[in-house]
């Protein structure tokens, strides 16, 4: 593992909510000295893919720091490298240059501390909802007793309202229910960072709003750091603390980061009545459809 240099002005980690850290499984201890106190750092990151026509730069010089417990949404036109950026946090891709650091340690490969809710759910169709979640819990807590592990699974299925459907297999579940299982699986292993790649993109509007509210409720209770890709400005405004807007590719980067100051817990109806909501919404729309309008849209 690559450790950063010990600087003289090294500060201890500040404001780490203990309730969350206490529930952490036996993950590698991250108490080593860090360069900076931020939780997740994306620093000068570029991603270049070699192609037949020469190198293709997807991302160029991306910088972002995320505090622990923050809810970040990433928005941008398709092909702007949002997924590539999040893949470098989850560890499925490595940056061509620059660093992605979680608590000062470079991310090199996927791990359960950065759990992903995949775009198409990625549930195993031959396992029931319960067994799908159990697979994850069992992988992360191999030494817990079976009764404990089953209790964790049951709690998390109940949390997403799926106690009834626990013994059904994914092909028997609706899209919304599958995504709930996927979210339950991700939360059941108590990740430090939860990565969601357009989780609600394939769902109908009503299911989508329900799931947004459930996700927010669960997040309010657990406060893990969330990185979420979305195409939906309203979704981002409702859920996130900060909205990261990407410029168009190739060589995309972060164009603007918008603070979303609405107090939590949030109420959709109240937010929608706030005039500031429309200021922010117009600002985001302006960014996406005027300043960085997609060529073919």
């Amino acid at each position, binding site marked *: 593992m690559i450790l950063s240099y010990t600087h003289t002005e090294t500060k201890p980690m500040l404001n780490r909510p203990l309730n969350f850290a206490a529930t952490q499984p036996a993950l590698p201890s991250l108490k080593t000295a860090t360069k900076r106190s931020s939780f997740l750092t994306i620093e000068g990151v570029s991603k270049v893919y070699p192609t037949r026509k020469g190198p293709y730069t997807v991302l160029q010089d991306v910088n972002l720091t995320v505090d622990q417990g923050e809810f970040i949404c990433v928005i941008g036109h398709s092909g702007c490298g949002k997924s590539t950026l999040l893949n470098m946090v989850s560890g499925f891709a490595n940056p061509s240059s620059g660093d992605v650091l979680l608590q000062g340690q470079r991310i090199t490969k996927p791990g359960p501390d950065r759990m992903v809710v995949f775009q198409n759910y990625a549930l*195993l169709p031959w396992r029931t909802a319960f067994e799908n979640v159990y697979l994850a819990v069992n*992988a992360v807590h191999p030494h817990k007793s079976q009764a404990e592990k089953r209790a964790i699974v049951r709690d998390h299925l109940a949390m997403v309202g799926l106690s009834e459907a626990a013994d059904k297999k*994914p092909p028997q579940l609706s899209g919304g229910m599958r995504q709930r299982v996927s979210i339950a699986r991700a939360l059941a292993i108590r990740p430090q960072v939860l990565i969601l790649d357009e989780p609600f993109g394939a769902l109908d509007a009503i299911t989508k709003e329900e799931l947004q509210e459930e996700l927010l409720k669960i997040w309010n209770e657990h406060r893990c750091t969330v990185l979420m890709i979305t195409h939906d400005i309203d979704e981002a405004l409702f859920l996130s603390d900060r909205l990261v807007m990407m410029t168009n590719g190739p060589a995309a980067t972060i164009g603007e980061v918008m603070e979303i100051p609405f107090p939590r817990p949030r109420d959709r109806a109240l937010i929608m009545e706030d005039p500031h909501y429309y200021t922010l919404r117009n600002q985001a729309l302006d960014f996406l459809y005027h300043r960085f309008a997609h060529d073919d849209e």
Partner: protein
Amino acid sequence: MTVNTVRNAGANPLGLLSNFWRKQAPNIIPPVLGVLGFLTIWQICSSSGLTRLPGPLSVVTDERTRTLLMYPFYDLGGLDKGLFWQTLASLGRVAQGYSLAALVGISVGILVGTQPLVNKALDPLFQFLRMVAPLAWVPIALVALQQNQPAAIFVIFVTSVWPILINTAEGVRQIPDDYNNVAKVLQLSRKEYYLNILLPAALPYIFTGLRIAIGLAWLAIIAAEIVMSGIVGIGFFIWDAYQQNYVSEIILAVAYIGAVGLLLDRAMAYLQKVIAPTEQK
């Protein structure tokens, strides 16, 4: 129409029967008519002297063959056994060779499917060897193994292993990235990955291979036994009957072979339906 006369049956078991008949008649009548038509044309051809091959009725009219038909379980020692025992001996060999093929085919298939380098090294060899006909393996097996019994089992093995191996490897390669990504993010151990993701995901492909292979294995045993002399088995039985010109015995034995082959294929199809249903997405 026969359907009308049966429909009036009032009693409960009969009623059930008529119900079954009404539903299944369209599935039963055409194949029965097809088979009867085929046998009739065959019988006419041989009765009219168009071919020297005896008609299907000879199975009953020929006295030796009738004995074989009526007493499949007789055992007079040595090679003189009823057709049931002959078939069973062949099936035993198929079971051994096929089990070996399944074991080797699935394990090597997984290796080849997960290791692209091994695949590159071995694929040309596999593609070449699988084109070799079962009969061509017989002399090689006899020279290499010296004895009839192991040679027959080797011929089964070498004929049926390729579809299992190639389908397993393909099944492993076709595992959706999503499933592998779940394994990666959860950092599943190798054993957990094999048991919980690789095997279940590749199972439909493995079963396709197993089902193709069972048919090939049965074809191969007949071919192998025909060439290997002096063993109990339905293949050698046919060869023996041919040498002594008992043609109707051959016809009866062929009916056994066809029926057993059909049963083996149905059994595999049933297993596939139970263990790896295709309704999975």
